């Protein structure tokens, strides 16, 4: 694993802790889904944790993040509260959206997390607008948008690349290339040399990195964020990775080549970061403890969620709009 003089073991340990927390969250979310406690769909981020964590370690709390359907990891990394997120998945009071949103609509505006998104690539166009708002308000925030390697083929994403560069907006697009979109091997439906070449055709600098290498993510994003924040214009980072689970919790991914999965497990980011930490002063015991703490933190949230009150049906009628707000129980006339 590549290293870096700036790699402070304490800092790495903290990033590692977040990665492990995401992993625990996702395992628990999957189990809760299979146990029937969580409805809808749950797209797990397992195997990609180093990307969200490495990216967000280089953001300020007031920077914005826009995400996609696979947004749990992005949210936790940006600072959203995993307890409120778990309550949301369970549809309970106290959830990030009070049960109105669910897994695909996690958001925490207090930490700049402007929302997961159920519609692929719509978050991309929203990002460039958020960046225009930043400019208009005279702030030095930046916007980070996460997009998958399947999502890059939607027109709005491509429009957004052009737009970001035309106005030289402070946007960082992170394409998490896990090589698959649902059941589709993306290179089969992606013409040309891929997203980096496309971004460059818009005049946008693009860097391809090993997304499972926390240090490479950290180092690259640190540089790129600094460039963007100081007015360097938008950039794209393609983070190569691998989706270790099915597309969503109810997908057994039978289409996956087992040898490929096996190989990917060997490049999985948590074990790699763990190995570095073991070489750099952390003990196996400390790591075991850290993981157990993460697990028990998350299990606590699951238990809390399981026992938390359901929202009152009335809540379904709030927060629709101010003008012409619906009334409960609603006139059936």
């Amino acid at each position, binding site marked *: 694993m590549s290293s870096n003089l700036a790699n402070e073991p304490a800092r790495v340990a903290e990033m590692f802790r977040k990665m492990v927390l995401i992993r625990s969250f996702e395992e628990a979310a999957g189990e809760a889904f299979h146990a029937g406690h*969580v*409805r*809808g*769909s749950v797209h797990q981020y397992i195997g990609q944790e180093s990307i969200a964590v490495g990216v967000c370690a280089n953001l300020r709390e007031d920077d914005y993040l826009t995400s996609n359907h696979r947004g749990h990891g992005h949210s936790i990394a940006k600072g959203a509260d995993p307890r409120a997120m778990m309550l*949301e998945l369970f*549809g*309970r009071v106290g*959830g990030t*959206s*009070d*049960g*109105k*949103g*669910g897994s*695909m*609509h996690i958001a925490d505006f207090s930490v700049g997390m402007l929302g997961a*998104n*159920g*519609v*692929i*690539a719509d978050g991309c166009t929203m990002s460039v607008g958020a960046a225009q708002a930043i400019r208009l308000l005279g702030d030095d925030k930046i916007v980070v948008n996460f997009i998958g390697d*399947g*999502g890059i*083929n*939607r*027109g*709005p994403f491509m429009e957004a690349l052009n737009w970001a560069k035309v106005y030289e907006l402070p946007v960082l697009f992170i394409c998490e290339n896990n090589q698959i*979109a*649902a*059941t*589709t091997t993306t290179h*089969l*439906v*992606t013409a040309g040399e891929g997203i980096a070449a496309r971004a460059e055709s818009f005049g946008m600098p693009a860097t391809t990195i090993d997304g499972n290498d926390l240090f490479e993510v950290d180092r690259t994003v640190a540089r790129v964020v600094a460039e963007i924040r100081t007015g360097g214009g938008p950039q794209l980072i393609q983070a190569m990775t691998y989706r270790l689970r099915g597309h969503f919790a109810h997908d057994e991914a039978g*289409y996956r080549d087992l040898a490929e999965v096996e190989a990917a497990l060997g490049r999985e980011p948590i074990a790699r970061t763990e190995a570095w930490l073991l070489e750099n002063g952390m003990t196996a015991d400390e790591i075991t403890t850290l993981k157990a703490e993460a697990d028990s933190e998350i299990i606590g949230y699951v238990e809390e969620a399981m026992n938390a009150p*359901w*929202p*009152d*049906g*009335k*809540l*379904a*009628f709030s927060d*629709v709009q101010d003008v*012409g707000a*619906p009334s*409960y129980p*609603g006139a*059936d*006339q």
Partner: protein
Amino acid sequence: MTAMTYAEAARLALQEEMARDPKVWALGEDLGYEGGMAGQYDGLQAEFGSDRIVDTPISESTIMGAAVGAALAGTRPVAEMRFSDFAMCAVSELVNQAAKARYMFGGQARVPLVARMPIGIRGGIAAQHSQSPEAWYVHTPGLVVVTPSTAADNRGLLKSAIRCDDPVVYMEHKGLWGVVGEVDEDDEEPVPLGVAAKVCSGDDITIVSWAAQIGVAALAADALVEDGISAEVIDLRTLYPWDRDAVMNSAARTGRLLVVHEAVRIGGFGGEIASDVAETLGIPVARLGGERIPIPFSVPLEDAYKIKVDRIVARVRELVA
């Protein structure tokens, strides 16, 4: 008669039509391995090849736009949009192009495509995966709009939709994918477009509905028997053209009309039916539909949106009282 699910019946219909007519093909995301969101394309790529069951990039505008071009060029594409919510990424292609090409070009063109876009609540998939925008497309000249409610109709109406020379917005209800019904496999006749089905007969009130709401309406009709109220339930099946004669005849006889749909009530297609009946027959009309809120995620919130049996029963009681 064979028992099969709504999804299996749709698969059978597509398979039959693809075997019958080499010009029929389908395009969309994850049709091959996944076989569609509910297995409604299972095995068809193996049977017909990847040129006729085309796995596409995530490019909704092009799925729909390509279907328009392919229809203009003499084939019969089925454009699978997965969710009517995602079809909102392709409205220009559907409404500005598919619906208007024949007309704008003075009859030179035909656009025999099926824009397949499931609607409705499946449970917990919330605001961006549960919408029922059928009223939009009913309001759009050039389009036919179909909303099957049973396995047999999903087979028979999909066949009609594929054979139709007009662009058809075909809206399966996601909540019905797994519902089993009897299908007569030997009878390969399509179910005609624009013809309603009578779900049950009654004399006191006509309840008009479609898609998943039909099951709820039928249960309500059962429950009303205890009140001594006999309700006739009509499944429109096709929303445009809707079977106005069937509705008017029934409503003229029962003297009361209730339209029930899962879609939002305000601005919904129930307004068309109710106002047309009121204008034509001058009888009491009423509508039930979802409140004007996005579909929420959590169970009690989603429940608060749904039109359940008790609400239908209560409304009918008021009307008949």
